[in-house]
């Protein structure tokens, strides 16, 4: 099985640590970025595109929605699964993010179980796998 890769994009270091801990437990290699621009810069230098990005909405420099729009406009990044992870929880915001090309949306606060269930919906975690 090829190594799965995840990118964790959040301006809060504490939140990045939580997300990184969860995806690492699910056997992803994880890289971190503090905002959308930093994430795009990292992606530009990568030879292998990550399978998954977990993306905060409110960040300095480039917010999560702009990041999603940029990724969707780049054919090289077509295979990336994009999940918003944010306190933005108005219905209209969720609709905007999905319309921009996000695949899933997790509202903070989230439990570890809820995050894993969302990734299972996206086929990134085998359902019912215990190990």
């Amino acid at each position, binding site marked *: 099985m090829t190594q799965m890769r995840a990118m964790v994009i959040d301006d*809060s*270091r*504490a*939140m990045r*640590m*939580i997300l990184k*801990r969860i995806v690492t437990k699910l056997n992803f290699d994880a890289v971190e970025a503090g905002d959308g621009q930093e994430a795009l810069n990292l992606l530009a230098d990568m030879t292998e595109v990550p399978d998954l990005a977990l993306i905060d909405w*409110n960040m300095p420099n480039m917010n999560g929605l702009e990041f999603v729009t940029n990724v969707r406009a780049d054919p090289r990044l077509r295979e990336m699964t994009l999940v918003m992870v*944010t*306190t*933005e*929880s*108005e219905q*209209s915001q969720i609709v905007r993010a999905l319309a921009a090309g996000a695949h899933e949306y997790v509202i*903070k*606060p*989230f*439990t*570890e179980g809820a995050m894993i269930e969302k990734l299972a919906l996206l086929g990134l975690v085998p359902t019912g796998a215990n190990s």
Partner: protein
Amino acid sequence: MSVEVEVNENDLAEMVEQVWESYLDPEGINPLIPTYDENQPSEVHSSVSITGSWTGHIVYASSTEAARRAAAAFLAMEAEEVSQEDLTDVLGELANIVGGNVKAMLPPGAFLSLPQVVLAPESSARFPNTTRISGVYGIWDGEPVSISMWHSSSDNNQEEGA
């Protein structure tokens, strides 16, 4: 323009419970036990400001020890390993999460500031011209923790005049 804000103590308590369930007490064995004591002491606090359709602040305040334990639980480390940076980051994120959820209940057009963390009691920094509209006060792991919501009274005056 008059804006009716309905974020009561039950709403706030429910959000707080969700934060505990998600990060601070996933096993459900160490909840925040309510004291209803608005004057309980704090040693550190964090806050986010909301502007736009509603103006005010969401404040998370606790003892230093409670903040250290919160950081340890949040970051899955031992309390002794928690650095000042860890403690500050987690305090900021807790205010941000509660603030973000409060914002979702406000009329459209509300904006959330970045969190501010102050390693001093909440009472040292009472926000000027504000009134408390709801709060959750409790003891967590034997230590005081509170989450409160303050409405900027300049906005109040506008409402009265509207």
